[in-house]
């Protein structure tokens, strides 16, 4: 029989104790918002494939104030994820040019923010043109 493992008592609210822990948990919790958004995105594409009436009904739903509030909360979560992700990228994957380490600020610009601007511009152009 294996000995019982010793467990230090740890309340599940441990992350509220410090500002750094709270920021960590906020960053990790953005993923909880991603799950319903993926389902919504799939429903959206499925509605689109079902014809103009189904799509028009979906548009009506997205004009509801509840949808506007949910989209705003979601936008906050995805933006927080993007900023924290791009800011962490150079710390996990340092960037070197001619064996010289690129400062984190510029590495985040080149590996994160610049591609983000390009992707956003291309997608918006594709939808709005």
């Amino acid at each position: 029989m294996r000995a019982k493992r010793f467990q230090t008592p740890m309340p599940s609210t441990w992350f509220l104790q410090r500002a750094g822990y709270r920021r960590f948990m906020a960053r990790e919790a953005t993923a909880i918002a991603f799950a319903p958004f993926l389902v919504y995105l799939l429903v959206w594409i499925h509605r689109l494939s079902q014809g103009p009436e189904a799509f028009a009904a979906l548009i009506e739903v997205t004009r509801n104030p509840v949808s506007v509030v949910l989209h705003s909360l979601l936008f906050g979560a995805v933006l927080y994820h993007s900023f924290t992700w791009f800011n962490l990228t150079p710390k996990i994957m340092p960037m070197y040019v001619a064996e010289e380490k690129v400062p984190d600020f510029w590495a985040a610009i080149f590996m994160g923010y610049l591609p983000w601007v390009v992707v956003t511009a291309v997608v918006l152009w594709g939808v709005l043109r």
Partner: protein
Amino acid sequence: MKKSNEALWWSLFSAGGVMSALFLPVFVVITGLVVPSMAARNGSRVTHEHFVAIVSWWPVRLALFGIIFLTAFHAAHRIRHVLMDLGWRHHGLPLIVLCYGGAIACTGAAGWILGTF
């Protein structure tokens, strides 16, 4: 040493983190702002046919599939670790089944919806 799948989950998490950081903000703007404010107007260019034309192009469907697949595994990994940090550490297997099972289901649904579009 005990064999572990963590490297696989972590690389999917990482790839999905990049994809979601790049694409999700603009997707939320489209579904939450562009479509409700523009598509309902008469004479709008952002119509049902317009979106069907975009999604009908196979590179767009392939990109959407990749984004949804990787984002699903990114979210699954993070949610699993959040729940572990909140004290579910000793329910390892049910958590793995729930989180990555959800991501697999989401990927399957994306394959079906985009594959039959």
